[in-house]
C-alpha cells in the first residue's frame, strides 16, 4: 500500500468521522451494514411515496450495493459470498436516499455520478469502492447475518440483508464528503487521453 495506512472505522459513522476522510484513503469497517440494490431501492421509494413505513432504520447507516449468495443453515442465514454490484445503476435513487436518511457510507463498485457526490458533500457521506469480483476475500469480513427484510418480495439476491462486519475491506474512499470523486476524475483523464490514442491508430492494417 506504499505508505498508505489502513484507517479502521466503526459504525455508526458520525458526520465528523466521515468529514475527516479524504479521497484515496483506504479504510476497513467494523459494525453493521445494510445491503440495498436495485429492487430494494425501488421499494424504499415506493413506500415513501405512499407514506408507508420502512421496516428497517436507515438513518446514518452504511449501505452496500450487493446481492449475496446466501445459505440457510440450522444456525440461521449465512453469507456464502458477497461482493459489490455496479453502483451506477442506482444513480437516480441515491442522492435522495442519502439526503433523506443521512446515509454515511455507500459501498459499491464503479463509482457514482455528480448528483450523488453533491448529496454526499451536502449530507456528510462517502463512497467506498470495493474490488468487483473479489467476493470470496471480502466475505471474510462478514461475521453474522443480523436480519433480513423483503426476502419473499425481492428474492435472496435483492433482499435487504442486515450484516455485522469486522475488518470489512479494505475499501477505497473514492468519493469523499468534500466533492472529490476519483472515478469522475479518472473518467475525465481517460476522455482527455482518448483522442490522442485514437489519432495514433494506424490507418493501414489488412
Amino acid at each position, binding site marked *: 500500500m506504499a505508505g498508505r495506512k489502513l484507517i479502521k472505522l466503526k459504525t455508526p459513522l458520525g458526520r465528523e468521522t466521515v468529514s475527516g476522510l479524504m479521497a484515496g484513503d483506504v479504510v476497513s469497517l467494523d459494525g453493521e451494514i445494510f445491503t440495498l440494490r436495485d429492487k430494494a431501492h425501488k421499494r424504499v421509494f415506493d413506500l415513501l411515496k405512499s407514506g408507508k413505513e420502512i421496516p428497517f432504520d436507515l438513518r446514518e447507516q452504511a449501505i452496500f450495493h450487493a446481492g449475496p449468495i446466501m445459505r440457510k443453515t440450522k444456525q440461521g442465514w449465512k453469507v456464502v459470498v458477497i461482493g459489490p454490484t455496479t453502483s451506477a445503476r442506482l444513480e437516480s435513487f441515491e442522492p435522495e436516499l442519502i439526503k433523506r436518511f443521512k446515509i454515511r457510507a455507500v459501498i459499491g463498485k464503479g463509482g457514482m455520478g455528480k448528483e450523488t457526490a453533491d448529496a454526499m458533500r451536502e449530507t456528510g457521506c462517502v463512497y467506498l469502492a470495493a474490488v468487483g469480483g473479489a467476493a470470496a476475500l471480502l466475505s471474510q469480513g462478514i461475521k453474522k447475518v443480523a436480519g433480513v427484510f423483503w426476502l419473499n418480495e425481492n428474492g435472496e*439476491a435483492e433482499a435487504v440483508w442486515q450484516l455485522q462486519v469486522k475488518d470489512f475491506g479494505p475499501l477505497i474512499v473514492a468519493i469523499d464528503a468534500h466533492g472529490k470523486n476519483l472515478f469522475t476524475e479518472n473518467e475525465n483523464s481517460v476522455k482527455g487521453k482518448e483522442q490522442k490514442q485514437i489519432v495514433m491508430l494506424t490507418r493501414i492494417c489488412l
Partner: protein
Amino acid sequence: MVVLGSGIKKQQFVEAIVEAMRKAIVFGSDANKREIEKQRREETCGLAKLQLGQMLENFKVARKKRIPLCQDTGVPIFYARVGSKFKLNFDLREALGEAVRKATKEIPLRANIVHPVSRENTGNNCGLGFPFVFFDFFNGNYLEIVFCPKGGGSENMGRLRMFEPTAQIEEVKRFIVETVAEWMGKCCPPCTIGIGIGGGADICLNLAKKATLREPDERNKDKKIAEMERELLEKINGLGIGPMGLGGKHSALAVNIEIAGTHTATLPVGIANNCWPGRKATTRFYNNGKIRIN
C-alpha cells in the same frame, strides 16, 4: 468400424458437469491470475497495486475455501461440440438442466435468471430458455462441453455496430477504443476484450464471445490480426482506465479478435468482454468412460 466403449451414463455426465462448473466458479483462470501478477509487478499507482493484490488474494481465498470467486455466478450458457463417433445415450439438454439445478444448490450459484419483463426469478437458474446450449458437430470421438459464466456487469457492456462496407479499418479500431473508454470500471477491469468482425449481426457477437475464451497471451494465428490485437491493447492501456476504473498502467488483460467472412455489403463488428476472474471450464467425454475437465 467398431467404436469401443459404451458411452457415458447420464448420471456420470451430470456429476462431471457440476464439477466443471465448480472449477470455473471457484478456481477461475490460471492464465488470468498470471497476467494480473505481472500487471501488479509493473504497476506504479498505489491504489491500482492494492486492488490487483486483492484480486490475487481473492483467487487464494476462493480456492482454499472452495467458495465462488464472485457472488455474481453468471447465467448457464454451454457450448457443446459433439463428435460424430461419440455415443450420446441421453437427452443432452435435459442432462445439462439437471446439472445446473444441482450446481445451483451445491456450489452454490446465485439464482440469476428472471423473466425479462416481470423480473420474476425462476429460482434455479433454469427455465425461459436456460440453460442455453449452442451446438457444433465435428468428426471425432468425444463430446466437449464448455462453460464460461460471467457477471451481468460485463455482459451489459456488449456492443454491436454495423459499419458501412466501405468503412476504413481505423474506424473499427476507433469504435473499439471509444467503447472501452465508455466502459471505464463498469465491467470489472482488467477484462479480456473480445472482438468479432464479420459473419453477420448475430455471428460477430458470437465471435466476440468466442474470442474472450482465448488465453490472454494467445494471439490470433493471422499475423496481421495479431498485430491489430497488440495495437489495440496498447492504445487501450494508454487510456489509463486501470483496475476497477480507478487509474493505472493496465486497463485490460488482452484484446482478442476473431474474424469471419461477411456479406459484401456489410461490416459487422461485435464487442464482448469477460471479467478478470476468467471463469471457464472445458469437459471432454469419451466413449470409454474417460472424462477430462480443464
